[in-house]
């Protein structure tokens, strides 16, 4: 006699949801369960073409943190819609296993919403558990991708790059050349070019102010 766990019940409820509203509610409940066994099911929800449920699933996956990464990386690369949501989840989690996907997304994804999520994610990779030399390798990769994206054609991506550069630099000692390069990237975004949005300039300005106070 095995007792059905509360999570298993919630998974069943989700699998049986037969309306968009039901699916949203069931996803929210499962996302709130904070149980690693929910991860593969939440990843499945990313492919259901239900934005409300996908937002809830991404939040649930981010709160699961590293426990959700394996499930996210097993996602079918052909399922474009689901992949876009997965980039957001991996960006929020910051696990280094998601690095390749985020680098790839910022550099080449066609959707600005995916590039913007990747840009923020590359600024907040969780590197504390890596050996110092590897930390530096990852930081350089993130920095290179962010600097390249300072010329992205979409304002919202450049905005996210400003956020990513600030987050990245805030984790570095200012004497490192990487800190200086991140700062230089922010100065690029500060430029009042005709095609640069004022909101991007203001965000870069704020980032620079905060870094000066570091």
């Amino acid at each position: 006699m095995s007792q059905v766990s509360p999570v298993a019940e919630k998974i069943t409820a989700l699998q049986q949801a037969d309306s968009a509203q039901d699916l949203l509610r069931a996803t929210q409940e499962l996302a709130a369960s904070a149980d690693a066994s929910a991860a593969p099911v939440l990843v499945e929800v990313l492919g259901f073409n239900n934005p409300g449920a996908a937002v809830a699933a991404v939040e649930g996956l981010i709160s699961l943190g590293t426990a959700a990464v394996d499930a996210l990386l097993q996602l079918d690369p052909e399922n474009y819609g689901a992949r876009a949501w997965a980039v957001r989840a991996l960006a929020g989690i910051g696990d280094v296993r998601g690095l390749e996907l985020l680098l790839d997304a910022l550099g080449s994804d066609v959707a600005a919403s995916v590039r913007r999520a990747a840009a923020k994610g590359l600024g907040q990779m969780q590197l504390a558990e890596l050996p110092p030399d590897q930390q530096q390798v990852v930081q350089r990769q993130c920095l290179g991708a962010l600097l390249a994206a300072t010329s992205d054609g979409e304002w919202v991506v450049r905005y996210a790059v400003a956020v990513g550069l600030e987050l990245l630099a805030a984790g570095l000692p200012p004497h490192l050349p990487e800190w200086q390069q991140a700062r230089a990237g922010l100065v690029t975004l500060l430029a009042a070019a005709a095609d640069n949005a004022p909101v991007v300039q203001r965000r870069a300005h704020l980032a620079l102010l905060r870094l000066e106070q570091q």
Partner: protein
Amino acid sequence: MVDADASPPQAGEPISEQEALRRLRQSEDSSQQYYGAWWLGRMRSQHPEAVPLLQQALRQRRPRDSGDGVEENAVARNAARALGKLAPAAQTAIPDLLDTLQDADDGLREAAARALGQLAASEAIEALCEKLASGPAGAGAQQANSPRLVEPCEALLEALGDIGVNEPRVLAVVKPFLEHERPLIRSAAARTLLQLSGEARWGELLVDLLDHPQLQVRRAALMDLGAAGWRPGFQAIAATLAENSLKLMALRGLVEQGNGDPGDEALLACMDALL
């Protein structure tokens, strides 16, 4: 609100400004003209020939022929849209746009109204008010054989807000549309009143629409709050059930168009959380 088909007709090879001008100048292939007009607006062309060529394309419009498969006015519509994006160079095209506001094609009237708003053409206030004067039951009534309204009310209302002249006659024409049966029109009217008067009650009305059961209405209210730059609405914007992309656009509007409390830092923190 979002311009219905402001995207290129097809994904083509990137072209140069000279090529865009050439395509608009020729007259054999209207789809090439359509693309050329779109390109000049999208790229904010500063070329001295851009505005005159767009004016010429705008005059190319013709009466609608429902039997005709090809949409002849598509080029003129794109020309109007492009002129709206070419302020201040396109000021010289205001008389053409005012003429176009009287065209029989309501899609073209809509594009002209939006362009006049973007050019902040105070010369247009009288004509815009005149078009709207018959109120929700006249200008705002549904056409007999189409879901469209008699006048493109949303564009006309928003143009008055973008022009931004706060006069009693303008307010008197806009206010009745707060009672229109369509929430998108109510949203446009509230946005315009908010832009003109800055009164919080109109902002609150838009915030109420962020809870509307239809996604389309919530999206419109987001864009309207952004266009008016109404900063007190920032948390309601962040909590709306809609795409983050649209919330970010709305918040950008609050940062760039608005002032006062909350300050930039709180707004930018709100945007950061939506990336």
